[in-house]
């Protein structure tokens, strides 16, 4: 009897294809320390909006389910309000089956956010937390299997343990897992790192048909099979991320797979190195800063300035940066690459119209400025005061 059932399931699965939305690393409750309170609020709200967007996308695409491959919350000890607001977004979203995987940021330890009364009381019915490796059938012969993290520091990735128990039983099996892969930036992890070859073997042996991975915030294909992916985070969180802000629409069957990238994030973290040598360079930078096409309020800009500017140019640059700071989510100087030198020219001197000992002081500061940032800024201050006095 059981053999017959297994055979029937296999027959059905052979002809079944499902569409799922793969997302991960929401890390709700995350804060960026460089943000002002108002920016932080916007950042948090936009991350919730991204979830709403992806859920709407899932509905539009008539997805069979949504899988979140770990790190839904930034930590188990997030605020009650964060839990409620997240679940409220899910409750308002289309009622598509959704599977949440506890991972290293929110493991299933005694403090697990998924065990809190707040979560249990507010969790919508279409949302399932993958607390074990049981299979969740979402369609005939189609199962979702999670490899949840029970602690922050597993010595062996739960997926590795799960893989040993799987066989090709004809089901369309989708694994939801979390952790670094040796060929996708995870080699630095000495513990619990997954090997790409193992993952490839898992799908080529048809023990599973798709592995939805989380941990890496950039959308990344793992291995050549197109059946193993990092979806990346729906909103970027760091300038180091190469392709964040996406979710994946995955249509998978035992024989075929189609993965589509969908942009849902609105924020961007920008690192920019700009060389300033003349007025034209400065004007270009100012124009770039004021680019109307950019959503500046959601842009975190880290700017490294190099080259040489006059005092007048520096004053103009300072004004432009001050204005940008008011508009952008954040504007900071990239100290590691910042090499801007202030070198007053004759025009500066003419404009300042200094004489006597004030002119001597100016020359002293000008000599010190190349090697001394304080002197450089003092020079700029003197320039500003002189120009103001002259007017």
């Amino acid at each position, binding site marked *: 009897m059981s053999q017959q059932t297994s055979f029937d399931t296999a027959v059905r699965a052979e002809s079944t294809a499902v569409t799922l939305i793969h997302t991960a690393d929401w890390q709700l409750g995350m804060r960026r320390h460089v943000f002002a309170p108002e920016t932080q609020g916007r950042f948090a709200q936009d991350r919730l909006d991204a979830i709403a967007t992806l859920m709407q996308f899932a509905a539009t695409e008539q997805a069979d389910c949504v899988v979140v491959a770990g790190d839904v919350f930034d930590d188990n000890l997030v605020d009650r309000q964060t839990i409620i607001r997240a679940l409220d977004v899910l409750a308002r979203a289309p009622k598509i089956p959704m599977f949440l995987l506890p991972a290293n940021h929110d493991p299933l330890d005694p403090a697990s956010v998924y*065990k809190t009364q707040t979560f249990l009381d507010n969790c919508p019915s279409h949302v399932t937390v993958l607390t074990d490796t049981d299979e969740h059938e979402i369609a005939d012969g189609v199962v979702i299997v999670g490899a949840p993290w029970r602690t922050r520091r597993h010595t062996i990735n739960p997926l590795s343990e799960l893989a040993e128990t799987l066989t090709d039983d004809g089901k369309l099996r989708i694994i939801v897992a979390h952790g670094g892969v040796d060929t996708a930036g995870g080699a630095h992890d000495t513990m619990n790192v997954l090997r790409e070859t193992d993952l490839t073997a898992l799908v080529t042996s048809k023990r599973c048909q798709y592995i939805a991975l989380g941990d890496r915030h950039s959308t990344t294909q793992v291995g050549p099979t197109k059946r193993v992916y990092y979806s990346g985070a729906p909103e970027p969180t760091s300038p180091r991320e190469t392709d964040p802000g996406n979710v994946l629409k995955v249509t998978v069957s035992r024989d075929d797979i189609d993965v589509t990238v969908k942009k849902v994030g609105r924020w961007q973290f920008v690192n920019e190195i700009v060389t300033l040598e003349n007025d034209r360079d400065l004007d270009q930078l100012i124009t770039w800063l004021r680019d109307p096409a950019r959503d500046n309020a959601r842009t975190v800009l880290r700017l490294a300035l190099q080259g040489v500017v006059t005092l007048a140019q520096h004053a103009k640059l300072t004004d432009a940066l001050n204005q940008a700071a008011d508009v952008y989510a954040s504007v900071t100087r990239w100290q590691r690459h910042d090499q801007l030198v202030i070198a007053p020219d004759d025009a500066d001197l003419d404009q300042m119209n200094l004489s006597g000992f004030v002119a001597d002081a100016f020359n002293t500061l000008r000599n010190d400025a190349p090697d001394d940032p304080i002197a450089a800024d003092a020079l700029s201050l003197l320039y500003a005061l002189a120009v103001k006095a002259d007017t």
Partner: protein
Amino acid sequence: MRLIELSLHNVRGVENRTVPFATDTTELTGVVIVEGPNEAGKTTLRDAFVALLTYKASSKHSDVKLLQTSGRDEPPGVSATFKLGERTFTYRKQFTKRPTTELIVTGTDPIQLSGDEAHDYVVKALDEKLDRGLWQALWLTQRELATQPAIDDARGLTRVLDAGTKTAAVGMIEHAVVDAARRHYASFFTEKTGKLRTELKQLDEAYDTALNELEQLNQELAAVQNDSDERDRLERELPRLDQAVTKAEHDAAKARDAVLRVTTWRNDLRIVGAELEAATAKRDTLVARNEQQQRLTFEQSQRAERIDVLAEEHAAYDTALTALAVELANAEQARLNAQHERDEARRARQHADKQRQLRQAVDEREIITKRRDRLIQLEHERAQTTHALNENPFTQEVLEHLERLQHAVDVARIQQQQTAPDVTVNALMAFHLSVDGIVHELAAGDNWQATLTTNTGLAIGDVAKLAITLPKADTHNAWANATRALDDALRQHDVATIEEARAKRDQRLALSQQLAHQSIEYDTMLGDDTREAIEQAYALLDHSTDTTGLGDTATLDAQLHAAREREQLAEHAYDTADTTERELRVLYDAKSAQVTTTRITLANEQAEQERIERELHAHETSNDNNDLMATLNTANDTVTALQQQQDVLNRQLAEAGADDIDALNDNAQAVLRDLKTARETTQRRREQLDTTIRVRGGDGLFERREEHATRCTRLQEQRDAQQHRAAVAKRLYDTLETHRGLAHSRYIAPLYDEILRFGRLLYGATFDIELNDSLAIARRHVDGVWLDLEQLSAGAQEQLALISRLACARLLGDEGGVVFFDDALGHTDQQRLERLGAVLRLAGQHTQLVVLTCDGERFRHVGGATRIVL
């Protein structure tokens, strides 16, 4: 500007006066000394010149009113000819009534003007050429004798100094920049102390507080994480503990079975042991009882023999004791008799002793009394002899002295008899007698005639008629002197002749010998004693002793000797009797003790014998006495059987290793207990951790920590930004201040050099100064001593005030005006005045100096000066 001529008309009592300040209009520098008594109008010249250049002719200014001559109606008029640049101005004003202004300018651009137009023209020309504020500041009056000129804001001087520094001085922009930089600095630092302002400190404190809070949250978060880690470890530990407990339970059960088996054997062994112990005890009791009976029987026979021996000994001792008692009584009586005789002889000898001692005391009393009496007598005799000696002064020396005098008389007489007298008499009534060269004035009536006759044998007649020369007066005089000396000596010793003196000398010699004899006897009588000791011995004598019937010494000595011999014999007899008695008593006591001991021992032995007999009788009358040995044999058999049974059980326990089994079982049970405890502890700890983690983790700790971290970051950024801004402000401010100080030094250099030049001329090569920000002299140095201006004397301050002005005037050169010194240098001594002459002359080479003074002598050292006497 150079003043050529100044005329006053009806100004402050000066009706008409024209003062030529320069005769040669091409040489308009130099010193002009205007000399005149008080109220001659010296100061009026200066005031009139100022009024001419400053006020309109119609001005009602008090300075103008003061020009008016009191009590006169005529308006004051002032006219001056001066040179301004290359042009010569002839300028005249009549003030108050009918105000008039006239101006004629010659040279380039000549012009002639009148009225206010002329006034305005002059004012404008002056302002273009010189700084009038500075110009007048350089003037020195008596009121300003010690003050430094107010020149720091002087436009003209600034221009000169700027030119000297070859650096344009700061202008409005620079002032604004410096002020703004200072204000900017002051927004971060306190200006007085340069410390950070409170706002910045508060930012720093806020950051530290936030950092502490963050650290606390980090610790809380770490605690949750630690709990979670520990819980994971416990979770893994529990299955291992379960397995260990199961295995320990199995081991414990096996060990317990082994112990039960051994316990049964041990119980059997304990029972057998108890039975063996009882049987052994019973047997031992029987053996002891048998041995006791045999011992008593033996002891009874032994003791009976000993009692018989003791009874015989006691009888023998008793007999001997009785004989010793009789012998002891006889010895005691003999000793009593001897004792009586000894006491009698002792009393007789004591009486003889007393009689003999009495005799000796009486004899000694008589000796002492006689000795004392003789000493008293000798003392009296010696006193008499000493008195007689004291009454006779004719010692051998005295006698020899008298005999020498007698001899001198005899010799002088012989010499006189052998030579003729040499006597000269010059006399009338009163005449001079010269004897041996000594002239005597003799009055009439003296008995000189007899004297002369006696000495010379010459009969002298009427003295008034005689003039006799005695040629041998010397020998006569010598004889007379010797005779007189002898007579004086005899008279002094109260004798008539030398023979009488000789007899008294012999008498004194006899007394001396008598006194010596008396002293020898006295010392002999005294012996080694002192006179006081003899008196004390005499005082202690008993003079009341009755010596009636007391025999002589020999008799008493014979009686004493006989008494002593009797006493010795009695003592010996007594000692012999006493020794005999003692020896007998010792023997008696020993024998008596022997008898007593024997008697007691015998009694004890007899009592013990009776007890043994009673005990034996008790044994013999007991019921089981007949079955004792049989019972003893049975008990021995029982003991042997039980010992064999015990050996078997011990062998079984040894073969089973009973001690090890106990230890193994004990350990197995302990291990089981420990493991169960560990499992319970682990379970409880896991439950505790579950609770702790849930409680700690339920309040959004992570996000609160993140929120604090954000706050810390922002506070740090703010603080760093503020500190950076403060550092920038400080850097700019410090740099400006540094260069301002340097510029100041450069700026004042020309003025400093000029003052130094004049000062060294006045004070010598060691002169130096410090100028303050107002370009005034703040300190002066001379000969190694720096003094503040206020510390200097009035004269020195006055001199420094003068050379400061001269230095400014010299710097200004053509751009300066004529400089007035009005009654200056009133405190300056003559030596300095001489040097000041050179200073003024040097200054006058580049400027026009007008010295107004009432004492022209004070400035006579100014060489080449033009002197005007009012």
